[in-house]
């Protein structure tokens, strides 16, 4: 009935990770096969977008956690005084 019940199984995380990693492996292989018509030179590097996406997200999270949060975080009743 509810297909999401899958996630209640103890090994669901493992299966999800296996699916994700094999999907990414296939994408990386395909990247070498499909010919690019690049606007800029650097797009022709294999897996340019993969690396960029990964680095972008790591930078995003680290900056948000270690730079932005210490500056802006306040108690929930900060404005209530």
């Amino acid at each position, binding site marked *: 009935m509810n297909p*999401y019940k899958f996630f209640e199984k103890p090994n669901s995380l493992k299966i999800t990770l296996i699916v994700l990693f094999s999907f990414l492996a296939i994408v990386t292989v395909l990247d070498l096969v499909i010919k690019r018509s690049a606007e800029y030179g650097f797009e022709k590097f294999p897996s340019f977008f993969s690396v960029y996406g990964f680095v972008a997200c790591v930078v995003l999270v680290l900056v948000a956690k270690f730079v932005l949060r210490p500056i802006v975080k306040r108690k929930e009743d900060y404005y209530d005084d």
Partner: protein
Amino acid sequence: MTISFMPPFLIFLIGAFFALFLRGKVLKWWIIIVPALALVNAFILPKGFVYDIHFIGLNLVPIRIDQLSYVFGLIFCIISLLNSIYAYGMDDYRHHVAALLTEAAALGVVFAGDYFSLFFFWELKALSTSFLVAIGGREGSLKASFRYLLMHVTGGVFLLGGILLHFHQTGSIAFNYLGLTNLASLLILIGFGINAVFPLLHTWLPDAYPQASYAGTVVLSAFTTKSAVYTLARAFPGTEALVVVGVVMTAFPIFFAVIENDMRKVLSYSLINQVGFMVTGIGIGTALSLNGTVAHAFAHILYKALLFMSMGAVFKQTGKINATELGGLFRTMPWTLTFCIVGAASISGVPLTSGFVSKSMIVAASAHQGLTIVWFMLLFASAGVFHHSGIKIPFFAFFSHDSGLRPKEAPFHMLLAMGIAAFLCIAIGVYPWALYSILPFPVHYVPYAPNHVMEMVELLGFSALAFTLLMLSGIYPPEMRAINLDFDWVYRRSLQLFMYFDRKVIVVFEDKVVNTAYEWLFLNPIMFFARFFKGVDTYVVDGTVNGSAKATYSVSKSLRKLQTGNLQDYMILFVIGILILACVVILLRGGI
């Protein structure tokens, strides 16, 4: 010529008027009939139609239907119907009146052909949307609605100032291409910019939207920013400053979205990010980028409403909206989760969803114009939006740790509204040419080129990898009960500072100096004259009045003796009176 259609805003205005008096089931059907009629009407709107009236020497154009206004008008009618279906279970008639008014105002804005009609609907929209926030029913709703109104009224003043200056300089109030050339256009740009959540002017959105009701936020998300995008696309295409503004808008909100706890606030920040793509497209100003902006607005309204609907459903069913209190809802709300995932995929631009076919036009346009940095930033923002809206929203609400909450699935009408929105998101993604055919310029863009699909899959796939690894390693910032300051800190603290200054300095100065001076210069002389006239009053006027009162009193005292209260006395008096009367009559007639 005869008009075979109704002005779209008029349908909603009439709808809002009657919604004031209808209640119960009748009202619920009424709020569905009105946008349904408007949607049918939208399909028969004649393109190229202009209706103008001359009024006190001005050429007012309340209806101008061209390709640009038509696309926005159409999507506004579609989303109005979905809003009504979603809010079918809402008993508060005030919500329905405010929603219909907002829809009327938004349609008025996109079909207005002159600045005065535009301004009228612009202000109507500010009022009706702030009312929607005010009746949100959350602890901070009322205060947030005042802050919201304050920002929008300020924006309205900028806009009006710009319009008047523009009218003074050109003698025309026609609302067409303007361009950033002088002070008048700058004021108009700022007026539009406050509604289009320009950076630093954006704070009203994440402040107010999470304070509305579960259905109110869905209404808010669709109209205000997108009608501002429309006005920018009309008046400022190709304005280079907007490229910078837009790119900043795509980038900074995603950092806030990562650390934000309130799910609807996360969506509010990602809304700014998405509008940033549209503003960038307007700034680039080529046919491809403007098409991209319009297409993205169309797609965005649907998936953003869908995401707010899914979080609204979670909020309505659980009463909670913070990531710290949610989690594990996949067990009991599978349909809401499914629709939420469709919305999340669309906003992330996953191939075969609407975001993919619209956002990529703007990104491609930046590449075609050789704007390398802009292109890099837009890619960064695309990865980031996937990260916080695409993964974070469904993950923290429906999976993550088990909150123990087992709410019922959302009611049927809400699932229906979400289902239709989800269907449209996928339909546009699978068959984008239906949308492309109504865009302002002819479309030569091919969304499903193999390398383009690969780029997006790589970008998103490895963003997902980054999220997974960061979660597993525990580096991902844990959700916590806290608020995050935004630039409105400056507005709010400076106002508080002013109030402090007001209490400690201005009030004291007024009390000690102004009041004393006033007392000596005015109050004391006036008191002196008042005392003099009081004396006159007491001894002269009152003396006279008292004297006559005393006289009246003694007369009435003697008269009172006649009033004995015995019936026989009155009878005698009556008889005597008649006799006297008879005598008088006889005397006057000169004998019998």
